[in-house]
């Protein structure tokens, strides 16, 4: 797997969340994603950025354009040093169906992405990585 380009952005405020959306959109356009694919990855990024800011107390996101066997993708890695998630399985469910209640948006972000990986420990922050392949 090859890394073509990377950029790191802070997620420390609501304005940062908007900036992240716009940056992800620009990268997705450059990678040649279709409009629907762009919308999905930007929306997933919005969910995860909000999580990092609202639940994680702030953090950062790394945008990477990657390539493997001739296929290009956009990889986003969100990190926060917040309280972490106690029950990841449950948290993934909360984002589902209603979208009401707490809805951590994790389940949604997963459904909108090609690949999804999460690591979190109570007291040790949260790390979420998604990839959208072209």
């Amino acid at each position, binding site marked *: 797997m090859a890394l073509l380009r990377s950029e790191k952005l802070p997620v420390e405020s609501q304005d940062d969340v*908007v900036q992240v959306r716009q940056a992800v959109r620009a990268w997705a356009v450059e990678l040649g994603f279709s409009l629907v694919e762009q*919308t999905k990855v930007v929306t997933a990024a919005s969910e995860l950025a909000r999580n990092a800011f609202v639940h994680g107390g702030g953090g950062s996101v790394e945008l990477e354009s990657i390539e493997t066997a001739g296929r290009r993708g956009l990889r986003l890695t969100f990190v926060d040093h917040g309280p972490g998630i106690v029950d990841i399985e449950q948290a993934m469910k909360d984002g589902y169906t209603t*979208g009401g209640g707490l*809805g951590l948006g994790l389940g949604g972000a997963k459904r*909108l992405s090609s690949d999804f990986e999460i690591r979190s420990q109570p007291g040790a922050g949260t790390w979420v990585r998604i990839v959208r392949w072209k």
Partner: protein
Amino acid sequence: MERIPILKMGEFLLVSIQVDMHDRLAMTLQDDLTAQIVKQRARGVLIDISSLEIVDSFIGRTLGNIAAMSRILDAETVVVGMQPAVAITLVELGMSLSGVRTALNVERGMAVLQASLAADNGGGAGGDGAAA
């Protein structure tokens, strides 16, 4: 502080969201709309999202909240102009916004609001033209 302008059209309020909203702005809109519904004694709210390229779970919930609150205040809400890519993404996200009425565009949305108002005012079998 930036706010989204709310226009009054007869008994209806018209909102057009043209910017990439951050959460604070969405909450402000929610507050402003409910306040205006009461102040203007509005019977309907039309929210035009044809310029919104992203509707995530927070904005989706906000739209749902606005619809629910308006209903309690005796006003009907219609959201119009959702872009196809946004609709597909929302559905994939798991939000169907089932408590929110929708229409293709402003014209249709107004028709929905007017019909709903007529029904409320005892329309149907030729009321006394009480529709706005």
